[in-house]
């Protein structure tokens, strides 16, 4: 069934040969030589395999590189002294390259190219995408009188060379429909069509400019363009793997919409998403932006290994960053050097260092997260409150830490350690103090019960106890951390000789690090969120517990401390203390520390007060990026052959050398400098990549066809100068303003010409890459819904907020977790008719309409949607409840019209509404006949049937 529906994308072979550049007199390595090497040589002499140490990916492994034969592989100017020429020309079967049993010999032409290249000096030029764009000169052509700006001059120049001409202008109605859908994802209303057509009659250019400016300023603009971005950053409202739990992260989606609407410059847009948390004094918005990185999948399946999926998320962040901003297949480098592009295996892990030190670790509730107010007017207050809380917490921590380091601690001896269950501890006193650790199987919900004999505590009052928790094997834990621990309550009591118990009250706890996903103070009340190493323990951790008054034991008394660890890792791993020791002190500064009147005490109170204030602001949460404190930093080591279990050398942060040559980076590398590097002046990728994505959205095909690969195995740009021109305009002239670059493109003649396809042109350029006609595109998945709602008058214009649940076919919603309900609002509720972008995105159950129309399910970065054309799509727009309601609503509109206007008039108007033009006579007659015939047989259905036909026209579904 589905075979006739292969995408246009796969029909592009003819077009590609059409685009092949004619060879100029001078040789160009990237253009003339590299493609031959990539096709014939790099399989054995490339990044993955470098037989005889020869690699055609790297200049220094070829030019003047002495191979096994003792002769340079390539000696510039001397083809006859170059091993390469000997190898590709020899008739000796043992020596010939490529090997005769595996490959055909190179053609005469290819050999000639190699000789010419070496003769001319064997210049090794970098692949085009690794050279910074330069401002090209604007070409001229005889077609320029039609040009509406420089974009057209580039395109026309090429058309002229191909002996082609642009098409006539699009009709104003269809043009407005194209502009409206392209810029806002919504079709124009009747009144807009009327107004535009009359303005166009007077001054077409002005009419278009005015309308474009208007469209760019509408809130719908951000909603349309956010979809493109959300595909890249794999936005979803659920976690993905495991139980695919609901994830509350829509504040990020709204941030993206807002960013496009406010025309947030793309450089800031970039930096905030990659490292907003590291900006000085970040605003709530800056932090929300970092949720971009938290769209990685989590695995909440019971029994999974959090560390495995934390690493997977880090890997995904690397790959997504390189794909989104660089269109590079950097993911290849996870396992080996890049087969075609100059990226080394270790550079992957150097880059990993940027992402490897955030606090998130595949935890059940997506910690760490941030609470943001529902009401945008409260953002400023909340930002300030948060800043203050963090500052005070920092001060409190510093105070505690200073005290801790200047305290004279005494190791505790003679401990007895037991548990509440089958977990067993043994105590080792051989070092002169007690260290305890588990033996055998550790059970979940283990409480560690430590009994301190009076001998430790009877001489002097104890003002503080310090609990240190260690990994079972501290030497290996740094690189291969075992499951950690999470303390959710600590109780203490003094037990006398006859067993009477007297509770000891802890007033505060001072942790070893300032702030982590969970709150250290939560160790004191029962069932707190707790303190600990969640989910893994790399280093020894400690917490100081301060009793309200110093503890002093009498002879025969004991102090019993019960540490509750009720939490489990992914439902199965005990988050129990497996090894530890205790220290005590009688330093009375600790008592002072928690006494009313002390500064630290005031701090605690104030933190408490402000935290309560913050929690009272109505709001939602969003997972964010948060850097782990330096003392807990995870070292990053190379994964041998990409295998996380086989760790190699430790690496430090770096940008790949091949790009660093072109775009240097600020010193003191961290995630923030990396983020800034992407949008630095000389970065050759970012601006090109983004304008190419925009181009593809508007014209259906990128200037670089392979949106996902700007590397040397991807396709070359069809119009390299135009790509660079646009990149320079975007980055320099417009200071990264997305609206400005979009405006320039849609104002081009090319975008506004007729999309009629003439058969002759179609044979030459089926993909329309030369743009001798305007674009003709199928509506995107989102537009299919929004368009139907808009023309039928049902569309809600509400912006943002929690995801919504429009009608969904029966039996589809069977989530793994039944509490994740799909409750569709009634027909009188606006939320039933929101724009597509607000629909709940559950990765394991994609909304069927969107999936049918090729929306990805957002597990990973999706650089390009492949359009299909299938019978299942027809079933959606004909039978799906959401579309049936649209047909009914449009039908009712028609009926109202029929009561006052002639039938043909009404149908003509409706046709114009869904297509942007008046119907051809024959089509109108067909519609009238359908209406009249149906009216005879099923009068109550007649208008709905006609409306349904209108909504299902090819012209309604394309623009």
């Amino acid at each position, binding site marked *: 069934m589905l*075979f*006739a529906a292969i995408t246009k994308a796969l029909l592009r072979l003819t077009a590609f040969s059409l685009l092949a550049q004619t060879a100029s007199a001078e040789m160009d390595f990237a253009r003339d030589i590299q493609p031959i090497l990539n096709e014939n040589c790099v399989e054995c002499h490339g990044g993955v395999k470098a037989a005889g140490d020869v690699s055609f990916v790297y200049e220094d492994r070829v030019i003047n590189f002495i191979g096994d034969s003792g002769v340079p592989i390539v000696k510039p100017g001397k083809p006859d002294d170059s091993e390469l020429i000997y190898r590709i020309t020899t008739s000796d079967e043992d020596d010939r390259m490529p090997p005769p049993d595996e490959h055909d010999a190179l053609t005469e032409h290819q050999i000639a190219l190699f000789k010419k290249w070496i003769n001319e000096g064997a210049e090794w030029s970098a692949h085009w995408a690794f050279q910074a764009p330069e401002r090209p000169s604007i070409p001229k052509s005889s077609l320029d009188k039609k040009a509406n700006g420089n974009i057209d001059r580039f395109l026309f120049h090429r058309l002229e060379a191909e002996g082609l001409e642009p098409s006539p202008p699009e009709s104003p109605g269809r043009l407005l429909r194209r502009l409206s859908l392209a810029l806002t994802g919504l079709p124009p209303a009747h009144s807009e069509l009327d107004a535009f057509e009359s303005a166009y009659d007077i001054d077409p250019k002005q009419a278009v400019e005015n309308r474009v400016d208007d469209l760019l300023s509408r809130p719908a603009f951000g909603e349309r363009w956010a979809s493109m971005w959300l595909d890249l950053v794999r936005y979803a409202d659920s976690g993905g793997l495991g139980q695919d739990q609901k994830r509350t992260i829509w504040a990020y989606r709204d941030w993206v919409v807002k960013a496009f609407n406010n025309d947030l410059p793309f450089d800031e847009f970039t930096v905030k998403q990659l490292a907003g948390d590291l900006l000085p004094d970040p605003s709530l918005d800056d932090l929300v932006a970092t949720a971009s990185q938290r769209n990685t*999948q989590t695995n909440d399946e019971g029994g999974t290994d959090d560390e495995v999926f934390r690493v997977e998320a880090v890997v995904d962040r690397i790959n997504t960053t390189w794909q989104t901003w660089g269109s590079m297949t950097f993911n290849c480098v996870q396992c080996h050097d890049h087969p075609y592009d100059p990226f080394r295996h270790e550079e992957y892990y150097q880059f990993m260092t940027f992402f490897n030190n955030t606090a998130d670790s595949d935890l059940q509730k997506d910690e760490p997260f941030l609470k943001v107010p529902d009401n945008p007017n409260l953002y400023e207050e909340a930002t300030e409150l948060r800043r203050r809380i963090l500052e005070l917490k920092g001060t409190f921590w510093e105070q505690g830490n200073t005290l801790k380091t200047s305290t004279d601690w005494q190791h505790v001896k003679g401990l007895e350690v037991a548990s509440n269950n089958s977990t067993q501890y043994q105590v080792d006193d051989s070092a002169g103090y007690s260290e305890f650790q588990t033996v055998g199987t550790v059970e979940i919900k283990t409480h560690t019960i430590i009994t301190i004999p009076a001998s430790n505590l009877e001489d002097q009052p104890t003002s503080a106890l310090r609990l240190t928790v260690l990994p079972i094997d501290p030497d290996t834990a740094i690189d291969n951390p075992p499951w950690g621990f999470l303390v959710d309550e600590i109780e203490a009591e003094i037990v006398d000789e006859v067993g009477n118990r007297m509770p000891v009250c802890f007033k505060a706890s001072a942790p070893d690090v300032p702030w982590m996903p969970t709150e250290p103070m939560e160790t004191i009340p029962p069932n707190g969120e707790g303190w600990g190493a969640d989910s893994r323990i790399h280093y020894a951790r400690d917490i100081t517990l301060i009793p309200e008054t110093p503890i002093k034991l009498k002879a025969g008394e004991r102090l019993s401390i019960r540490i509750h660890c009720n939490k489990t890792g992914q439902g*199965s791993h005990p988050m129990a203390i497996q090894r530890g020791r205790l220290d005590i002190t009688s330093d009375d500064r600790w008592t002072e520390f928690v006494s009313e009147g002390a500064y630290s005490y005031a701090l605690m109170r104030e933190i408490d007060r402000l935290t309560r204030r913050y929690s009272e602001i109505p709001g939602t949460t969003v997972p964010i990026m948060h850097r782990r404190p330096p003392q807990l930093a995870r070292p990053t080591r190379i994964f041998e052959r990409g295998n996380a279990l086989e760790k190699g050398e430790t690496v430090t942060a770096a940008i790949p050398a091949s790009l660093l040559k072109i775009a240097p980076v600020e010193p003191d590398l961290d995630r923030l400098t990396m983020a800034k590097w992407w949008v630095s002046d000389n970065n050759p990728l970012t601006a090109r990549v983004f304008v190419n994505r925009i181009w593809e959205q508007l014209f259906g095909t990128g200037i670089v066809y392979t949106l996902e690969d700007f590397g040397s195995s991807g396709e070359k740009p069809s119009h390299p100068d135009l790509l660079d021109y646009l990149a320079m305009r975007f980055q320099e002239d417009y200071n990264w303003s997305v609206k400005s670059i979009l405006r320039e493109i849609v104002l081009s003649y090319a975008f506004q010409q007729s999309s009629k396809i003439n058969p002759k042109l179609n044979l030459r350029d089926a993909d329309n890459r030369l743009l001798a006609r305007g674009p003709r595109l199928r509506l995107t998945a989102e537009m299919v819904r929004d368009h139907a709602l808009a023309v039928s008058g049902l569309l809600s214009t509400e912006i943002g907020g929690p995801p919504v649940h429009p009608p969904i076919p029966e*039996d589809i919603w069977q989530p793994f977790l039944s509490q994740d309900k799909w409750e569709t609002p009634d027909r009188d509720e606006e939320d039933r008719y929101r724009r597509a972008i607000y629909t709940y995105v559950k990765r394991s159950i994609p909304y069927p309409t969107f999936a049918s129309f090729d929306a990805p399910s957002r597990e990973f970065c999706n650089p390009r949607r*492949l359009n299909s054309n299938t019978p299942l799509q027809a079933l959606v727009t004909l039978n799906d409840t959401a579309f049936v309601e649209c047909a009914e609503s449009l039908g009712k509109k028609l009926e109202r019209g029929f009561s006052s206007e002639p039938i043909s008039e009404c149908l003509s108007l409706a046709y114009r509404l869904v297509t942007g033009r008046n119907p051809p006579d024959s*089509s109108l007659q067909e519609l009238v006949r359908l209406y009249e015939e149906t009216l005879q047989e099923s009068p109550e259905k007649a208008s709905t049937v006609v409306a349904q036909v209108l909504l299902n026209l090819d012209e309604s579904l394309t623009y």
Partner: protein
Amino acid sequence: MNLESLLQESRRRSLEQDSRRQFITRCATGLGAMFLASQNASRASASSSGQSSSNPFGQLATHFPSKAKRVIYLHMIGAPSQLELFDYKPDLKRLDGQPCPQSFLEGKNFAFIQGTPDMLGPQFPFKQHGASGAWVSDRLPHFSKVVDDISFIKTLQTDQFNHGPAQLMVHSGQPRIGYPSIGSWVTWGMGTENTDLPGFVVLLSGGRIPRVGKALWGSGFLPSVYQGVQCRSHGDPVLNVSNPKGMTRDLRRRALDTIRNLNQQTHDEFGDSETLTRIAQYEMAFRMQMAVPDAMDIEKEPDNVHELYGTEPGKESFANNCLLARRLVERGVRYVQLFDWGWDSHGAASSEALNGGFQDKCREVDKPMAALITDLKRRGLLEDTLVVWSGEFGRTPMRENRGGTNERKYVGRDHNPGAFPAWIAGGGTKPGISYGETDEVGYSPAINPVPLKDFHATMLHLLGFDYKKLSVPFQGLDQRLTGVKDASVIKELIA
């Protein structure tokens, strides 16, 4: 037959108007031509570098002739215990209740086992069956009777020990979401025999859906048309296949005629071949609206068939799906994927214990599995239909001690990626054999381990594909079902 009357109906209507008839003719050739062109284009772009010139792909022909034309894959979601079904381990019985030797635990990851668990002997008696002498436990009395048509693999291996990633490994060769499933590769590579039905159909037994959901039948980086289509035994058999309330088939036909004529007008003016494709797809949708419900309606099957399978029309069940699978392959569907559920026998609750729910699950699948083999065979379909049965990993010979405790009422086993069984039948496989042997406790392969990629390569081989050539370039790699590394076809399994 319904399909025939439908085509006649459609033909009659198109003859009513001369212009319409002309359109049909034009459309058919136009589409046919386009279809071939796109096929070739996709093939050309699909072949990995170096193969394009020496190995041009035929239209829908596979790389070499093969017996298997269709696949029915039965996946027991949750991973059934091999030690209670097909892998008979008398030694394990003797070790029952003893602490697990440390050598089994070192360097291993477990989902739920903590510390040192105890060994757990087989929970049910085994016997040899048929001329082939296959060992099967007493939980599968019906299936035991067809073992001579089956070949067993005892030593499948995966590297994933959690359900989601492991299920993805089985169906896409990768533990991550976003790669094409076997059904997508196969329908992409072979097309399908009946254009009125989806080429790749997915049937779920009801209960819980697999945790990664649609990703198990996704098309990954292949065009989305190759993803599996879930068909249901109650409600709409395919999403939106029923007309909305009050919309009769006649009314729909009339509306589609208008759509077709208006779209034809659009094509005449704008000349976009996508418009012609859309016309054809709307017509195909109309035919599907008849063909799918017809194929999915098991009520008409005779009593003896219902008896054989144990089917009850209208219910969601594995039995109904087995019968549906036969009906679908009979109608030319290329790949039918069944998912059963509830096989995760940890022993954490009665429903998932070897001494509880496991036995019910065995009862639910025993009869229909056997019926499917019997039925396909007697209809002559087994010889060109490959039937595959598996879970996503095996289970441990140790008793699960979740949370570190040993006092439990229910008996269960943890996940074991090291060795798990599958069986295959029909489609050119060699019946009545057992391939690979596990160690004395069924924990790891002792002889002939079968990594999933080899299993995939063998499946593809049975269908006439060279696993290396069924590839598509994506993100800088020639992507294959078997992954980047070389795989081996297991010749011993092929007749």
